[in-house]
């Protein structure tokens, strides 16, 4: 797993209260406990804070899984 992915996961872990070893591929919007619309905006706020950026609304709406979040955040990660 890349540093970029770990950086994204750190936000998900904090917001969704996940264990470190959690299978990341199973994290899906509206299926994973706590990842509802409210949780989604908290994740977005956390990602914006962590990556020091502002996400486009289209990207917020497209962020339907952890994998997708990793893909989207690569566009905002100055280190990747």
């Amino acid at each position, binding site marked *: 797993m890349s540093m970029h992915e770990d950086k994204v996961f750190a936000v998900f872990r904090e917001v969704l209260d996940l264990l470190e070893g959690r299978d990341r591929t199973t994290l899906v919007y509206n299926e994973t406990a706590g990842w509802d619309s409210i949780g989604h*905006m908290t994740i*977005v*706020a956390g990602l*914006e*804070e962590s990556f020091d950026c*502002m996400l*486009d*609304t289209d990207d917020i709406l497209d962020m339907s899984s952890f994998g997708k979040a990793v893909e989207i955040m690569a566009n905002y990660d100055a280190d990747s």
Partner: protein
Amino acid sequence: MLTLEGRVALVTGGGRGIGLAVARRLGENGADLVLVGRSSAVGLDSVAETLVEDYGVRVRTFCGDVGDPATAQQAARLAFSEFRRLDVTVNNAGILEDAVIGMIAEDVIDRTLSTNVKGVINFTQASARLMERSGGGSIVNVSSIIGRFGNRGQLVYGASKAAVIGATLSAAKELAPKGIRVNAVAPGYIATDMIKGIDPEIDAERRGSIGMGRIGEPEDVSDAVLFFASELSRYVTGQVLGVDGAMLV
């Protein structure tokens, strides 16, 4: 004087009329500003220069159509890149095109709803995300007495300004837990470019319907906006404040 020093305020339609008065009042009280306007950057930049000279605050400008979501996102991004925060958003940009029922063109409906309603929603979305990061903020929407009570010949405008009130009430409830307050002002008959060219008979009739016996000035509205923007209203959200001098419509 209230202090908004260290705060950043974004004002749509900030180049003239009520928006300019709001920008001046917020700047006078120390807020750094992002002005959004549809007209030429030159006009907006000249307003910005005046504000910098008069109040010593930092001012950035952005030109775009508030009905386009990209405008709100880019303006918020400008606030973020320049100031790293946003504390106050004043959704003031609006248009008024009168037409009696039966003579309302579809493009007037689209244009009015896009600017007056979509603009408010777009900037509420973009602003709230940025405000949440600094622990809260204040969004002030400019509705109208027509949105509260209606008026003949103003079906489209009245509908759009009533929608602004609906948006204010819903956003206030959703954003309260994040420390973001959302309120609206509902101006009456205010001396701005918007009423220039109005039929003198109608103008006289409207002035005659104002209980306080005078037309409102943009500063009457900007003072009410300042209240909502400042800590004086720290426990006030989801409210619509008429600024109309007891006008009857």
